[in-house]
């Protein structure tokens, strides 16, 4: 026993004498301190940074990195004795194996646990200091409760360290090789990330939760729907799946421990192995040549040939390295997977189109490349020194420059391989998937002209760092530190000026429609800038290159000073000059041509806008009643000129003496009255821009106060002209500039607005406090507010207007605006289109121009009217045209029949490039993003046809949003979005069946629940819907469930009545959410009115689950099913605090199902034996139901998840048949 204590204490003392122990502790402490002190946590604004959820979350994540620490700490104690051969002493001591084994293990384990407590201390002190110093506002921190820190450490971190620790300890005992530890740590880390990634798709979440050895997925799954209120108070208890997981994996750890103990013995571990001599094959006899006389030649060619030889051997050294190969293999596997799966929408992948594939290289592969570059650049530079070869190689007569250049060339060669690897992998993936449009030029341009310079720049920075630091590990630490600052710290400090972040460029993306487009320009200039700068760094810091055995800093400094005059330094200055020159060009473009503002400056300007102009918010301003647009698009120059002839009317009761007009997207706009430009005043005063170092920035006058020559009395009409343009010069600091591109222009930015715009204010309360602004109430006016009732939601600048336009563009493109094409002609090398919209529409339009192929079709409405369907698409994107078409055909007929006749004679879809990923419904015109389904792969019959669904949604907007124009009161957007989502759901269900909707509805529920857990202000009841997760996701669920309760006819009648009263109503009062509710209530029986109250006026959730389900055979194919269910309705407040409801009982579906099978189309099909609504009271209820026809397999309460339930999976269980 005494021996055990001695070894135990020695181990601890040894550890605490090593700086590494303190370094690890300090690192964990520092990270936690910075994150908590600076407020860089995922907590939304209503959640405390030091809430129990955030604390547990961080500890859980850090424990994954703790696995790497465990490999470093637990792998070493016994190996140390092997490496230093002190183990041989163990034979001669009267030491038991138990004492030794236990002493080493527990000593190190205690130290490992100590190190992990660094996170707790960091979080605690970070919170204290952050609040005390005002680094983060004090109100973002809650009370400090000890158990919030300790509980997650005990339940998450400690068991994880046990599992990892025993694993690595066992690994070293079984393999006796330290490399298994280094690679084991990395392999485990990568394998864990990989399996977490795969686990996302697995249906059986219980399995995932149990199989995760580190319980990260378990924790995330259990806490994914916590509301802000709950995040501040909830500590995940050790029960259920979490408890099971911890028990299983701790036992696994125990298994490792016992196995290691059993295997270990002094003899086994420490005895020198006699290397078995391999039977020598027939030996080649040495043939002495006649003469071996050599004459060394050091003339001209020698340095060059040495350069080649040195580069080759260095490349060889890198490629043969086992770590290089394993990291590269890991990267290649992830790359192949990312290529294969890509981005999915509604769980549907796209075809492997090359433009889309290029994006995926950046998901995981670039991280692996980054690790390789950082690590191996350092290894390369220090290789001679670390291996001890430098005492030989430094005496070779090669020049210093040759030695250094060979290292750089070797790295350049290796990174070239890394840049090219995605090409064969991508080609193989495309081929296996049956897609043969390879577009090799995209691969090559992306790999060689974009990615490769990027990699080289990374090499250059790390190279320069390692030249300065002679110690390899200090160099590694410094390189990682530099990249952490560039990639992380700057972001956290809200510094986003791309020119400061070495090797960063504005993001780019490939589009099938627009290729690389104008984005190539900024890539070129930034690559020039960073490459020149990188070369400067490498060449300049080569003065610190060490050769010879004097490696102390004093002698290196002396040599460096001597080298300052060398031609290499002069060359470095040339590159510095090039960098500065290109930097100046970039600066001019980013700061002056494109108005760069720092994040904080942007925030301040929003605050200034509110402070200086808010008093104008409700001044009387005219409304537009008619628009004549002349637009001239120049796609190649990315320029557009606009002329708008507007007729404006004073619809208020007060006189208007000045116009307030603003646009922050137009480059310039002028207002003309009677042919003369009106004078104006720019009322805002801003601070000087920080980056305006030349003091010559010209502030855009985006808000103009224009006095009218004559006051407009109430009822007066006026004609004004807006002359405006959109000009793109150079490139901005970030952003795609997607409005005007070479092919695929899509802009709605040309309409200046009237008056003060509330949506330009700062919305985050935390940010507002920084500028002394009070919290912002994001609710719109109340349902009966007079201003709200007489204004439209989408634009307060007009009610309904008449619209006509003449648009010109390049001769090879088609320009489209809302309206019917009257005439098309070519003039002066430009192509002209004249459109007239002959019925009144709302005041928002778009201009689209691209090189299109057009699919023309027709639909016939129930009343016989014909509607022209036009699909404008990119030439090659013909994969899913049938789906767009089907949705339009089905929807036009169905919606006209059920709601009201379609109000236009045409319906169009326009593809636009994937710089943005949405679709938007303008009158009879729907621009639809390239990435939103044009190249989706629907070969799996069970996939959710989201092209059909989204097209149906946009079509439904022609009713909900265009026939019904929502007013400007709270919640009114739901009559546009929730109804569009509902109508699309019904139409898709008709085409694909109820079962196909299940997964979609489950995803909608998941998105709603996640949305409310991220709420940063308050969650509103549905009738006051003000967030996407409410009007989209909750809307779909609420209306679909309602329809299930009251039936199709009732809902359709309600909607028909609603559209009957408010459809195409051109004059106030305009409809809002309460109007829709009124119609729905009219068609809902009294017994179900509680449901409308629950879903519209309150935030209602259910806790439904099946306790038990058993069946007894009572006859031939007849069974009696006994079902015990539990149900409780809960009401939540706006922060998510729940209270149980008090009620008699609610109507819930009870369902019993036979086995699932597939229908004729290959789609999954559920087979209900019984599905009926029962009135279920709160608490447990036992039901007995007879079924016949097949064996009951599953039974459930609310089995289709129509009601909002935070644990939807426990609604259905398997039936045990007796």
């Amino acid at each position, binding site marked *: 026993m005494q021996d055990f204590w001695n070894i135990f204490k020695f181990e601890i003392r040894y550890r605490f004498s090593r700086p590494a122990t303190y370094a690890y502790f300090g690192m964990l402490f520092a990270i936690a301190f910075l994150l908590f002190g600076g407020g860089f946590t995922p907590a939304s604004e209503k959640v405390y940074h030091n809430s129990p959820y955030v604390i547990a979350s961080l500890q859980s994540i850090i424990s994954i990195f703790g696995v790497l620490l465990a490999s470093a700490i637990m792998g070493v104690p016994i190996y140390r004795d092997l490496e230093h051969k002190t183990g041989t002493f163990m034979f001669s001591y009267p030491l038991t194996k138990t004492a030794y084994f236990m002493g080493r293990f527990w000593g190190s384990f205690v130290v490992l646990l100590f190190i992990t407590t660094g996170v707790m201390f960091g979080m605690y002190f970070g919170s204290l200091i952050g609040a005390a110093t005002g680094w983060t506002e004090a109100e973002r921190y809650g009370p400090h409760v000890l158990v919030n820190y300790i509980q997650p450490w005990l339940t998450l971190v400690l068991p994880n360290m046990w599992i990892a620790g025993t694993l690595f300890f066992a690994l070293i005992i079984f393999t006796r090789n330290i490399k298994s530890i280094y690679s084991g740590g990395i392999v485990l880390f990568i394998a864990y990330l990989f399996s977490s990634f795969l686990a996302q798709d697995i249906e059986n979440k219980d399995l995932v939760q149990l199989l995760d050895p580190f319980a990260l997925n378990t924790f995330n799954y259990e806490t994914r729907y916590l509301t802000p209120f709950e995040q501040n108070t909830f500590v995940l208890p050790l029960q259920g799946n979490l408890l099971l997981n911890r028990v299983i994996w701790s036992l696994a750890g125990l298994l490792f421990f016992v196995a290691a103990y059993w295997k270990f013995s002094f003899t086994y571990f420490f005895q020198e192995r006699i290397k078995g001599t391999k039977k*020598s094959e027939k*030996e*080649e006899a*040495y043939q*002495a*040549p006649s003469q*071996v006389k*050599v*004459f*060394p*030649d*050091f003339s001209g*060619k*020698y340095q060059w*040939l*040495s350069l080649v*030889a*040195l580069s080759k*051997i260095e490349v*060889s*050294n890198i490629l*043969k*390295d086992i770590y290089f190969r394993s990291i590269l293999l890991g990267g290649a596997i992830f790359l192949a997977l990312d290529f294969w799966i890509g981005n999915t929408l509604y769980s549907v992948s796209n075809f492997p189109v090359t433009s889309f594939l290029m994006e995926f290289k950046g998901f995981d592969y670039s991280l692996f490349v980054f690790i390789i570059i950082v690590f191996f650049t350092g290894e390369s530079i220090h*290789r001679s020194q670390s*291996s*001890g*070869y430098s*005492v*030989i*190689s*430094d*005496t*070779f*007569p*090669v*020049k210093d420059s040759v030695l250094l250049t060979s290292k750089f060339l070797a790295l350049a060669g290796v990174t070239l391989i890394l840049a090219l690897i995605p090409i064969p992998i991508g080609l193989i993936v495309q081929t296996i998937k049956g897609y043969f449009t390879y577009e090799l030029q995209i691969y090559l341009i992306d790999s060689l002209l974009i990615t490769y310079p990027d990699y080289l720049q990374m090499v250059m920075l790390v190279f320069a760092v390692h030249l300065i630091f002679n110690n390899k590990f200090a160099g590694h630490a410094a390189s990682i530190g530099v990249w952490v600052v560039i990639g992380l710290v700057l972001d956290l400090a809200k510094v986003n000026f791309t020119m400061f972040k070495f090797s960063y460029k504005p993001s780019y993306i490939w589009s099938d429609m627009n290729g690389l487009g104008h984005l190539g320009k900024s890539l070129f200039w930034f690559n020039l800038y960073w490459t020149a700068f990188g070369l400067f760094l490498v060449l300049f810091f080569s003065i610190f290159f060490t050769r*010879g*055995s*004097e490696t*102390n800093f*004093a*002698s290196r400094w002396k040599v460096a000073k001597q080298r300052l005059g060398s031609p290499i330094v002069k060359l470095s200055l040339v590159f510095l000059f090039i960098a500065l020159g290109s930097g100046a060009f970039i600066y001019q473009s980013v700061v002056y041509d494109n108005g760069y503002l720092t994040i904080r400056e942007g925030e301040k300007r929003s605050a200034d806008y509110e402070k200086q102009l808010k008093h104008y918010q409700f001044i009387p301003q005219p409304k537009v009643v008619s628009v004549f647009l002349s637009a001239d698009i120049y796609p190649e120059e990315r320029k557009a000129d606009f002329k708008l002839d507007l007729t404006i009317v004073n619809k208020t009761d007060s006189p208007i003496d000045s116009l307030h007009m603003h646009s922050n997207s137009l480059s310039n706009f002028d207002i003309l009255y009677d042919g003369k430009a009106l004078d104006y005043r720019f009322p805002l005063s801003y601070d000087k821009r920080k980056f305006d170092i030349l003091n010559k920035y010209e502030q855009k006058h985006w808000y103009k106060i224009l006095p009218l020559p004559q006051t407009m009395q109430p009822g007066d009409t006026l004609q004004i002209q807006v002359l405006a343009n959109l000009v793109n010069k150079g490139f901005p600091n970030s952003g795609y500039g997607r409005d005007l591109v070479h092919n695929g222009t899509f802009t709605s930015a040309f309409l200046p607005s009237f008056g003060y715009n509330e949506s330009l204010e700062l919305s985050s309360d935390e940010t507002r406090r920084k500028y002394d602004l009070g919290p912002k109430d994001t609710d719109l006016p109340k349902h009966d507010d007079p201003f709200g009732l007489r204004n439209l939601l989408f634009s307060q600048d007009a009610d309904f207007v008449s619209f006509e336009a003449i648009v010109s563009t390049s001769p090879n493109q088609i320009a489209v605006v809302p309206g019917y094409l009257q005439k098309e002609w070519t003039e002066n090398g430009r192509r002209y289109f004249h459109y007239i919209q002959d019925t009144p529409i709302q005041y928002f339009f778009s201009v689209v121009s691209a090189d299109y192929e057009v699919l023309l079709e027709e639909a016939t409405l129930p009343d016989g009217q014909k509607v022209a369907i036009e699909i404008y698409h990119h030439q090659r994107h013909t994969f899913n045209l049938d789906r767009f078409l089907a949705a339009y055909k089905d929807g036009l007929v169905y919606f006209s029949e059920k709601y009201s006749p379609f109000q236009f004679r045409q319906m169009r879809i326009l593809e636009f490039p994937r710089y943005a990923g949405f679709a938007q419904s303008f009158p009879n015109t729907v621009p639809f993003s390239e990435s939103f389904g044009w190249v989706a792969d629907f070969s799996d019959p069970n996939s959710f046809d989201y092209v059909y669904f989204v097209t149906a949604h946009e079509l439904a907007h022609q009713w909900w949003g265009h026939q019904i124009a929502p007013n400007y009161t709270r919640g009114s957007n739901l009559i546009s979005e929730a109804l569009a989502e509902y109508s699309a759901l019904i139409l898709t269900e008709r085409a694909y069946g109820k079962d196909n909707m299940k997964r979609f509805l489950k995803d909608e529920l998941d998105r709603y629940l996640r949305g409310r857990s991220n709420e940063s202000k308050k969650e509103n009841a549905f009738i006051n819907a003000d967030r996407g997760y409410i009007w989209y996701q909750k809307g779909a669920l609420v209306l679909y469930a309602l329809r299930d309760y009251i039936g199709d006819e009732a809902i359709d009648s309600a909607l028909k009545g609603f559209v009957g009263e408010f459809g195409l109503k051109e004059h106030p009062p305009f409809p809002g959410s309460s109007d829709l509710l009124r119609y729905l209530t009219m068609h809902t029986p009294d017994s179900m009115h509680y449901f409308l109250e629950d879903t519209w006026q309150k935030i209602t959730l259910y806790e439904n689950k099946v306790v038990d389900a058993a069946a007894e055979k009572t006859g031939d194919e007849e069974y009696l099913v006994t079902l015990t269910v539990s149900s409780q309705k809960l009401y939540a407040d706006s922060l998510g605090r729940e209270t149980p409801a008090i009620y008699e009982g609610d109507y819930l579906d009870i369902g019993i199902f036979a086995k699932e099978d597939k229908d004729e189309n290959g789609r999954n099909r559920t087979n209900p034996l019984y599905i009926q609504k029962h009135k279920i009271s709160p608490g447990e209820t036992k039901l007995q139901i007879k079924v016949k026809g097949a064996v009951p397999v599953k039974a459930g309460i609310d089995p289709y998840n129509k009601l909002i339930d935070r644990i939807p999976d426990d609604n259905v269980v398997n039936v045990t048949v007796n």
Partner: protein
Amino acid sequence: MELIIQNLSKTYPNGVKALNDISLTIQQGMFGLLGPNGAGKSTLMRTIATLQDADSGSVFLDDLDVLHDKQKLREKLGYLPQDFGLYPRITAEVMLDHIAQMKGVINKSERKDLVNSLLNKVNLFKDRKKALGTFSGGMRQRFGIAQALAGNPSLIIVDEPTAGLDPSERNRFYNLLSELGENTIVILSTHIVEDVSTLCSQMAIICLGEVLMQGKPSDGIKELEGQIYQKSIAKEDLSQYKGQFDVISTQLKEGKLSLRIKSETEPGSGFVPTVTNLEDVYFSYISQKVDPITL
């Protein structure tokens, strides 16, 4: 060909004076530099091998200023350091080929012959396709010798070359060196007296950074001829003898302490005259600087 070292001094930043005004003249042939550990041998070797600078003094190989014209010296140099490493994943053949190229053997087939012959000379021909990381200590040392000889160097510096070699390997090494050409200077730096006595026609003894003796081994022995006496004594009496006589070395022989003293006259007290060997020469000089007593 002559290597002239004049007034060479070097003090390390930690205060250690490694070379203290060293002057040596080295002719063609085998030159042995003898001294205990820490004498400054390796520092001197590294300085000549262009790996280090000196604080003051000069080194000239004929009219080549070694300290300031490093590249030119490197063209003639073959160097076997005391401690060195190799690239573990590269094979012996490829590595030696690479080194030969770095030493100016540009012609590919010439190089191949050279590599094979060198590897054969050091008995590594059968291991030429094995990765250097798998080599034992002795094999690595032999490889080191091979690379030092590549490229026909005219100045060869070997630092503790027989460390790690078993007796037969050591003999092989002696034979190899003795085959070296006429116009070559070989500086053999070692603390093993036998290496010098076997191979070297000239030698120097260095201790604590100073040259204590330079000349031919035979001359050194002749100088001390008849002045060395030996006696076996009891351990406890050592201090007594130390006080009385000029003790140059002690050795345990068959369990008893064997004392060797230097005395110009008959010392009496049971001391027996013995044949002077090179070790005696070495210890007699060293004992002037450090205490040679090993007890």
